[in-house]
């Protein structure tokens, strides 16, 4: 998928090298495809921006011990930083009661990968390799009973992990200027 994404960008740069400036004000420049790739760390729910790489919970346990355990606790429950494992109060019938714990509450496993990749480990963000992020994501999903310990997480498998809140969240209303907050609500 990554290579498909590169193609139109290259074509665009080729086509626009004569008129690299924007149409009305002529300000700014066209970024090189590598620049866009390097900056674009957002992962969509279907994972098309996910890079190559892979890992399992078994691999993740090693990285976690080295990079995460001192803040989040050895098992992700008793650290100074937020817990990473669902609470006992939740159930398949009431997944929201598992608590606001990213690897169980998020409707998509891609958000877990994205957040670890962009924001952790705190103070050393951006130092993990793609393999390490896949491996730790696999570990957190394993701890939350969502994948098996030896299940390989990569750009194909990660978006397919079934999260308990995939269908339980309310989408936002279509927005238009001058519209009330909620139709029929006087306040």
């Amino acid at each position, binding site marked *: 998928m990554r290579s498909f994404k590169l193609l139109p*960008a290259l074509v*665009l740069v080729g086509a*626009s090298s004569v008129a690299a400036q*924007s*149409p*009305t*004000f002529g*300000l*700014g*420049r*066209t*970024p090189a495809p590598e*620049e*866009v790739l390097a*900056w*674009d*760390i*957002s992962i*969509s*729910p279907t994972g098309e921006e996910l890079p190559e790489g892979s890992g399992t919970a078994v691999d993740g346990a090693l990285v976690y011990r080295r990079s995460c355990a001192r*803040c989040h606790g050895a098992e992700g429950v008793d650290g*100074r*930083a937020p817990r990473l494992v669902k609470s006992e109060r939740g159930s398949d019938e009431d997944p*929201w009661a598992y608590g*606001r714990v*990213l690897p169980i*509450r*998020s*409707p*998509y496993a*891609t*958000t877990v990968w*994205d*957040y670890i990749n*962009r*924001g952790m480990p*705190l*103070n050393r*963000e951006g130092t993990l390799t793609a393999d390490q992020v896949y491996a730790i994501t696999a570990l957190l999903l394993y701890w939350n009973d969502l994948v098996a310990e030896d299940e390989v997480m990569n750009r194909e498998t990660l978006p397919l992990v079934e999260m308990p*809140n995939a269908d*339980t*969240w*309310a*989408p*936002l*209303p*279509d*927005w*238009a*200027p*001058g*519209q*009330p*907050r*909620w139709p029929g*609500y*006087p*306040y």
Partner: protein
Amino acid sequence: MGAVAPGIGPTPVDAQSVETQSQEMDDYSSPELVAYGKRSPYVTSMRQPVNGRPSPDEFGLVFHIGTPLQDQVGAITPSALHYFGTTRGSFVPHIDPAEHRLMIHGMVDRELIFTMDELKRFPSVTRLHFIECAGNRSNSRHRTIIESHGMTSCAEWTGVLLRTLLEEAGVQDGGEWIIAEGLEEVKGTSSLPTAKAMDDIIVAYAMNGEPLRPQQGFPLRIVVPGFEGILSVKWLRRIKVVDRFYMTYNDYGHLRQDPSDAALSYQIGPKSVITSPSGGQELPGQGFYEVRGLAWSGGGRVSRVEVSTDGGRSWFDADLRGTPQPMAHTAFSFNWTWDGSETVLLSRCIDEIGQIQPTREEVAEFWGRPGVRGQDNSIQPWRVERDGSVHNAIV
């Protein structure tokens, strides 16, 4: 040196206190203060951490810091007192504006990168807008307005309309959402409808006549008028046009199970609060008081504010200061002579699209369940006791 004890305030009792005081006094003729002013040491209004979590926390992260609305005069919050919130705790990044870039990419005809200087060359807008955190909720445990309402502030923002930049890039068919990303350590990112981006979102580089303060996103942020504060992404470095709600970490953190709850948490409702007299203040005795407050709405301009000084039995129109602006604080006042008896002060906002600020009881009755659903825009009651002390009257 020139600094002497000022002519107002209590007369110092002995020479030593004069000396101590003169050592602490700023020299307003010093080159530093001639070049860049400072407020009087007698003015001590301060922000404070709110919502039950320390800032900084044990990791040094800052989370929710409320603005001292009880001291605010007029609609604009001084930049140094503007409330300060982060999605989850964050550090404030140090950004050299000469190095800073904004990239616009994704489903656009022309991907673009701008320097700060280039952004400042675009046609600009200057608009008054409030920003309010979805966590700005009042409850019976709050004693002062900084705790109950301190996560809203209003500033005059200057920047380029995001629409101008998106038109430069050319949004492609199906590009119905944008994601906006900051460059702080978690690179906080939110999804926003392109319809809003094409309407009134400002890519702002200045507030209240000067560059943004670092805690407000220096050198660049977006201001999303009338929407919950988390969407006004600070330290803005990237906007990607996409075809769907992207479920970023920020998005995930604000999910709701119920569509009405999700909608009511998104756009800020009509809201007002009496800032003076408010919780924790004391009235020195019966007689004349100007009741003062702020009103605002995510739905547009404030069209009317009503005040009750008898616990809601009678309501009167308050005076609005200046011309209300869309999605901006509007200051109001009401002349009141206190007869010394116990009473409750209330205010309610009516906005230009007819939304009316509710009491907590009205919200509970509407939904048939206790509490305030969605963003809390309920009427704040302040009880004045016979001794002049003012208290939060939420039960």
